């Protein structure tokens, strides 16, 4: 039904707008009602009573970047599968084998990453010395 296509998505915009307004009201309310007595100890980052040293915006393990990259790869794969799943039975065997080839290629990638030890954390990765 293309005639009410826009109307279907309009409630989403309404929902989004109301959620934004509500959240902003809550934050503003807490700013207005709550007390404000800042001091140095209160404004410093929490570190169980120890003086924090330096800035935290330093470097962290490269593994987190790798996981993020893998996520993009595999999630894009999953998104490709959605439209395929809807019309698989119209595409018949052609569509099936096409997607099997695609999944196989992605699986080869997964096993490569697996063997390279990207998915290992902690002790195993530490023994190999690639933390």
């Amino acid at each position: 039904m293309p005639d009410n296509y826009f109307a279907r998505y309009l409630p989403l915009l309404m929902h989004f707008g109301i959620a934004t307004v509500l959240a902003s009201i809550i934050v503003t309310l807490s700013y207005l009602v709550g007390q404000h007595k800042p001091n140095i100890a209160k404004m410093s980052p929490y570190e169980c009573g120890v003086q924090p040293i330096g800035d935290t915006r330093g470097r962290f393990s490269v593994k987190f970047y790798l996981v993020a990259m893998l996520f993009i790869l595999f999630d894009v794969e999953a998104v490709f599968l959605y439209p395929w799943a809807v019309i698989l039975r119209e595409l018949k065997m052609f569509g099936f084998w096409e997607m099997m080839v695609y999944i196989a290629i992605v699986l080869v990638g997964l096993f490569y990453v697996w063997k390279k030890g990207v998915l290992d954390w902690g002790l195993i990765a530490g023994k190999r010395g690639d933390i």
Partner: protein
Amino acid sequence: MPDFVTSYLGSTLTPGEAGNQFWALVYVFVIFAGVSLAVMSMNWLERKALAHFQIRLGPMRTGPHGLLQPIADAIKLLLKEDIIPAGADRFVFWVAPLIGLLAAFTVYTVIPFGPSQAVSDMNIGILFMLGVSSLGVLGVVVAGWASNSNYPLIGALRSSAQMVSYEVAMGLAVVSAILMTSLNETGTGTLSMIGIVRAQQEQGVWFIFKFFPLGLIAFIVFAIAMVAETNRAPFDMAEAESELTAGYHTEYSGLRWSLFMLAEYAAMISVSSIAVTLWLGGWMRPFSRLLRGSAWDLIFSLFPAVTFMGLAAVAFVGVVRMPRRSDFKVQKIGLAVFGWLLGFIALMLLIIAIAGRSNGAAIPSTVNQSIGYIYWFLLKVAVFMYLFIWYRATWPRYRFDQLMRVGWKVLLPISLTVLVATAIVGILLS
């Protein structure tokens, strides 16, 4: 009443499909109120249930059996000082809880509480839900980074890696349910949330039992991944309190912090709704094929009333069991009023169930049916909510390397295998 108000009553379309923006707005407000109420009662139930798991009493002082505890907490949080650490990035710190809350609340647009009880029915429903709910990761990362403190940063990194890893297994498990929707005459499936439940209705089977055990395995993968997605125990690495104090929201205080809690619980409800919609037949009542006929319809339509009667009975037992001392008098009266309120709701539901059986009665039978749809949907979601508490009480926390191993090396291959197997079975049947 104006035409746009009355014309929609009795419609079988969602307000979004019918293009009726007034009712869409009403639905949105109902959902906001309902989710807030659900989060408050969930907050109370979790503390109470966890306490009883550990042979404690839990909140007892604020109201009878601590029933007013969530309200007291809300007032306390409102009056707390709103601290922004000196080293924090002020704007990003301010915007992070908003992102989390928006992501958690916007998905409710497409959740089908009944065949017409949703704000809107989109043709990309499930894709939209997964996409928007995964925006919650952004709120977590941004919150951890903006705080400029060590614990939040580590918590945010951990939880983003975890959410992102389980997202993949979750997405692939969903695909196998979508494949099952295409097993009809036309051979075309659907991504619409209402369409998925309709497909289960037409095929006469919940997808959890379809192609046994394929549907069941996909469901289990999803059920594990959804606990990890919402950062709940045993996957609560993000806020492992013994290691990271509170994880990514350590530096947050007052209502700002409560926004994170609200978002977490709202996300729990929404992922449970996805699971219910995809595998557990959404608004369908159990055994709708096996036990049918007007007698069974009547029996199943009495369930909502019976549930509220049971709750009222629990409240009255609580009244009777209270100590006979004068300082308990207020609590006793309060609990009795609460019990009467529940009993009144039960009576209303009973009247609707009895009177709404035939067409042309004072109460149209569509009201009766709608209550049934919403009741069964909410009951199934409530089971999941209780499971979330139960998991937290039962299982110890995972170690981070175990967590990543389960996500990538166990759940991902399993969900891919199930997907391929479902595709093969689906092709062979056509």
